[in-house]
């Protein structure tokens, strides 16, 4: 019996021992499963768009200063590092390093050439600048924080190597901000336009951003998507709608076989996604392949062709071309140029009298007409709408001493078309019944000019000799514009403004002498269009270049003479159409107040 017990135990122990030996082992050796994935041959977009380094300028102080003002350009998280390279080692700690989204670059415009005073022991540099704005990490150029106009710092050679060419220079006693000249902004950044939907999701509103050229092409999609998820520029905030809360790009957008994949964290909504697709298609104008929008790695919106999407969903409802008009002998007349379409004046002849200036616009299939007519030493606003010909006009209840050219907003206010006009130094909104409502901008000084953008949600205003832009949200919040943003330009004595592109304005003023400049909507970029005018520009109208690709065009009036752009030339009376032969002896007048109908 005992024997049997022992045998049983032995068997059991054997069984358990055998079974215990076959669990998952605690540790095993390394098992090689195969070769790893092969390295994909990819283009390496090298260090393109990097600003020159400190030593690149040698001992040339002017070049060094120029390089110093571009040193901060590039990816923002390493801006401080780049600038510190320019600083003398002893002074590097004086630069307070900020992190993350707090990194801002002070974009300045040199108002004078840098003053460099050479001395044996040190070289002093004085910069006279105009603060243009501050470039944030999200690519927006925000209004400047300071109004400092003078920066002074020293240039120093490396200790013990004075006078040697290879030592290079250092900045001592540096400015506390990271300075970036507007030239550097133009050189090392790419201006990009991203689009946000307006509040009723009917229209895309452009928003301007700056992308460092140093960012590789492959990451641009990610950057754009990150901008979109981060929201619009501050001044546009009231006019546009942000993406839903919590929308976030998961890692980077990637490209597989020419197809871009954007993985997002956001609420699933088919309509919103479709709109997001359109938004992305327009915000990424240089992409034309397929785009896959995924939500948490689940494909939700697939755009086979971004180019086709852009064609199917244009940003602006614009007719094929524009027509030029002018006021000639108190009436609106078309202007004819070869290669440009021309048509009859869509204003009934009875109303087309005593016109000072006019604004016409197409909205759907209707013509919106607003005429400033003079009557009894007063100027009145006469507004009418019609399909082909506007026959019925309503005159404003009140006359004004002076009125600017009325502009139609290409957006609607409470379902009605509306326009803006400046009368006696104040900004008014008018509707199709010629009801004028004062619009408060909250800026000092009398308003002298107003212009509305193609999307109808942004306006440019000259008030008190200063240029402002503001977002307009006529579809909500009572139609009051958002906070006006002041633009800092080189121009003075500003007299007229209009939109010259999605993100550019054409601005008339003076740089020493009267000139017409193209100015970016943030005031950073300026380019001269014409400065051989000789007189103050009193009237300015432009057809904005738009995303469809048409070039902009401008016409202005100075000293009672109208000019047109491209090339700038005077508008001859011969171009004015539908003119009844002038009565004998009467001297032919000049066409004035030219404008575009589109």
């Amino acid at each position, binding site marked *: 019996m005992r024997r049997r017990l022992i*045998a049983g135990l*032995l068997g059991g122990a*054997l069984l358990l021992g055998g*079974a215990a030996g076959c*669990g*998952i082992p605690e540790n095993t050796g390394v098992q090689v499963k195969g070769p*790893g994935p092969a390295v994909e041959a990819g283009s390496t977009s090298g260090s393109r768009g990097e600003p020159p380094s400190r030593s690149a300028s040698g001992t040339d102080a002017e070049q060094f200063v120029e390089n110093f003002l571009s040193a901060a350009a590039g990816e923002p998280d390493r801006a401080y590092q780049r600038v510190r390279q320019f600083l003398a080692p002893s002074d590097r700690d004086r630069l307070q390093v900020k992190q993350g989204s707090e990194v801002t670059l002070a974009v300045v415009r040199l108002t004078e050439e840098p003053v460099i005073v050479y001395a044996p022991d040190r070289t002093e540099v004085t910069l006279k600048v105009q603060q243009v704005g501050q470039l944030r990490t999200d690519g927006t150029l925000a209004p400047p924080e300071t109004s400092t106009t003078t920066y002074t710092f020293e240039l120093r050679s490396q200790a013990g190597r004075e006078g040697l060419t290879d030592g290079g220079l250092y900045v001592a006693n540096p400015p506390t901000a990271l300075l970036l000249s507007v030239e550097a902004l133009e050189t090392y950044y790419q201006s990009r336009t991203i689009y946000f939907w307006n509040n009723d999701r009917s229209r895309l509103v452009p928003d301007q951003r700056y992308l460092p050229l140093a960012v590789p092409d492959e990451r641009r999609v*990610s950057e754009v998507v990150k901008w979109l998820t981060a929201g619009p520029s501050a001044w546009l905030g009231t006019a546009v709608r942000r993406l839903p809360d919590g929308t976030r790009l998961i890692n980077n957008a990637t490209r597989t076989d020419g197809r871009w994949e954007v993985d997002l964290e956001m609420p699933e909504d088919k309509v919103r996604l479709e709109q997001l697709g359109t938004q992305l298609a327009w915000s990424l104008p240089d992409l034309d392949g397929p785009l896959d929008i995924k939500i948490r790695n689940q494909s939700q919106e697939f755009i086979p062709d971004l180019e086709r999407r852009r064609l199917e969903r244009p940003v602006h409802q614009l007719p094929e071309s524009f027509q030029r008009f002018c006021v000639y002998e108190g009436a609106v007349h078309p202007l004819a140029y070869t290669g440009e379409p021309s048509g009859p004046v869509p204003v009934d002849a009875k109303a087309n009298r005593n016109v000072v200036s006019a604004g016409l616009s197409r909205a759907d299939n209707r013509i919106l007409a607003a005429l400033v007519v003079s009557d009894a030493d007063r100027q009145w606003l006469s507004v009418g709408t019609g399909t082909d010909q506007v026959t019925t006009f309503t005159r404003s209840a009140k006359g004004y001493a002076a009125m600017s050219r009325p502009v139609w907003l290409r957006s609607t206010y409470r379902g009605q078309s509306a326009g803006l006009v400046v009368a006696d130094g104040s900004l008014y909104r008018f509707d199709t019944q010629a009801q004028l409502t004062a619009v408060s901008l909250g800026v000092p000084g009398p308003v002298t000019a107003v212009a509305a953008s193609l999307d109808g949600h942004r306006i440019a205003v000259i008030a008190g000799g200063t240029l402002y832009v503001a977002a307009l949200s006529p579809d909500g919040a009572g139609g009051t514009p958002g906070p006006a943003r002041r633009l800092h330009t080189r121009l003075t004595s500003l007299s007229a403004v209009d939109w010259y592109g999605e993100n550019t304005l054409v601005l008339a003023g003076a740089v020493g002498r009267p000139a017409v400049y193209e100015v970016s909507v943030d005031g950073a970029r300026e380019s001269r269009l014409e400065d051989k005018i000789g007189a103050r520009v009193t009237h300015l109208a432009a057809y904005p270049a738009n995303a469809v690709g048409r070039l902009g065009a401008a016409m202005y009036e100075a000293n009672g003479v109208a000019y047109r752009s491209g090339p700038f030339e005077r508008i001859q009376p011969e171009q004015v159409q539908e003119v009844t032969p002038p009565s004998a002896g009467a001297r032919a007048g000049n066409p004035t107040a030219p404008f575009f109908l589109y």
Partner: protein
Amino acid sequence: MATSPIPDPPTAAPRRHVAARELWRGVHGRSAHLLAGLHQAWRRSLQLRVVTITLVASSLLVGGFAYLIADKITGILVENVETDVRVRLGSGADYAAKQFGLYNQPQETQLQETIEGTVNYLAGGDPQQTTGVIVALVADNHADAIQPRSSPAVNVRPLISPELRETVAGGKVASQIRTGRLGEERTKYLVYGSPVPTKFGQVELYYLVPLARQDATAADVRDTVAATGAALVLLLGLLAGLVTRLVVTPVRVAARTAQRLSAGLLDQRMVVNGEDDLALLAASFNQMATNLQRQILRLEEMSRLQRRFTSDVSHELRTPLTTVRMAADLIFAERDEFDPAVARSAELLQAELDRFEELLTDLLEISRFDAGFAMLDSEPTDLVPVVHRVADRLAGLAERVGVDIELDVPGTPVIAEVDPRRVERVLRNLVGNAVEHGEAKPVLITLAVDDTAVAITVRDHGVGLKPGEEKLVFNRFWRADPSRARQTGGTGLGLSISLEDARLHGGWLEAWGAPGQGAQFRLTLPSRAGDRLTTSPLRLVPADAALPFGGPRAGGLLAIGPGADGALAIGPGADGALAIGPGADGALAVGPGRPGNGGHAEVGS
């Protein structure tokens, strides 16, 4: 055995040594005892053997199968995880490669962010959970620029072995199972690594999959299989025990019945149940027992009839014999008056009648033995006078044939609990035979005693006995040489009766003899009636007897050398010596040089 004197003072070490030795002896003794017990049980119990063998064999078999099954299931579990992880790792590495492909240099600050985002994304989101898969990204080639990341954020370094890192850093997809503690408890992890190619070199992506669930499942399977296996083995053992018991029990019953049968209980039978093989065995056994019983009874009956016939014949012969005797006595008494020839006949008649009477007496005695009526009438008896008396009685006969009877008896009385009449008869018989076959050589009677037995030997130096005749001499009516006429008055039953008398005492009667060396008979009786004999105080073979094969006698030479035919011969050179050598036909012969001598043996091939 600590018998040596212990030095003074006694140190502890030897004591401990002694104690240990004692303990060892105890343990050893016990275990030896146990082993002996086990061995005995093993030899005796068929059931134990069958059950043990079944248990061992089925344990091995079931254990092997259990191991195979558990191993297979574990393998499948791990393989499933591996396949799953491999797919995940592949797509994860692809995803990471795409993500990192946007960077040209490991120093780019957004890269670190992307790594973190990628790792979190691949881990499936929530960085707080610590139970699931851990995704880790390590850049061994860019350790200065890229911080290793894992999601959930734990220190995975200990789990990724240097060998694995080296292998993966060498551009291979590799895996390893490691055990470590990341959360609360030690867990097994399947660590699977793949290189991720980037434009600035290579980083390594690792998936650490906890195998806790698989481990638990494997343990479950193992336990289940082990429990099932153990139950199976126990069941098999039980089954084997039952089946063996089913077979062994009837066999035991049969054995017991056979024992009883052999003990004389001829009525014992087995119980027959059913119609199976065991029932057949029992029935056959019973039939055999019945047949045996019948045969035995028949033989007994026949034997009884024979004995009774002998007894009856003896009795019936007595009456006419008495009459004849009386007439013969009368004639014998008157023989002097007859003519010499008739007188001689009367003498002959008288002598033959004496023998006839003796024969009848012996026949009656032996039939009494056969019938089992012989009764022992034991009493403490001094055997010295008995021996003397026998010698005296036969002195006349001895003198007649010229034989000296020598006595070697102790001076003190030799008391034994015997039947003196029977002992005396036995002695008379033995001494009478010795004198008769003594060939005029002395006859020696020796009496000896020890604690338990007394023994009497009777030695003569007559022709002796041929080998094998030591047993035959006790047969009834046996003659050494049938052609030789019975000259002396022996009936041929004397030794048979003596043997029966010795047996009745519980003693031995044995004979020894060798041709030419005479013979010796030894009677050994227990000192107390009923005791068992184990030894005898006297040797059966006399001291002066030749050794077997003759032996090297004094003066005899052992000769080894070529024999008559030039073959090897070993043996005493002279008469009666041992010879080893080839026989006549070249075969090896070991034996005395010449045949025909006493106490010889011959070995041949």
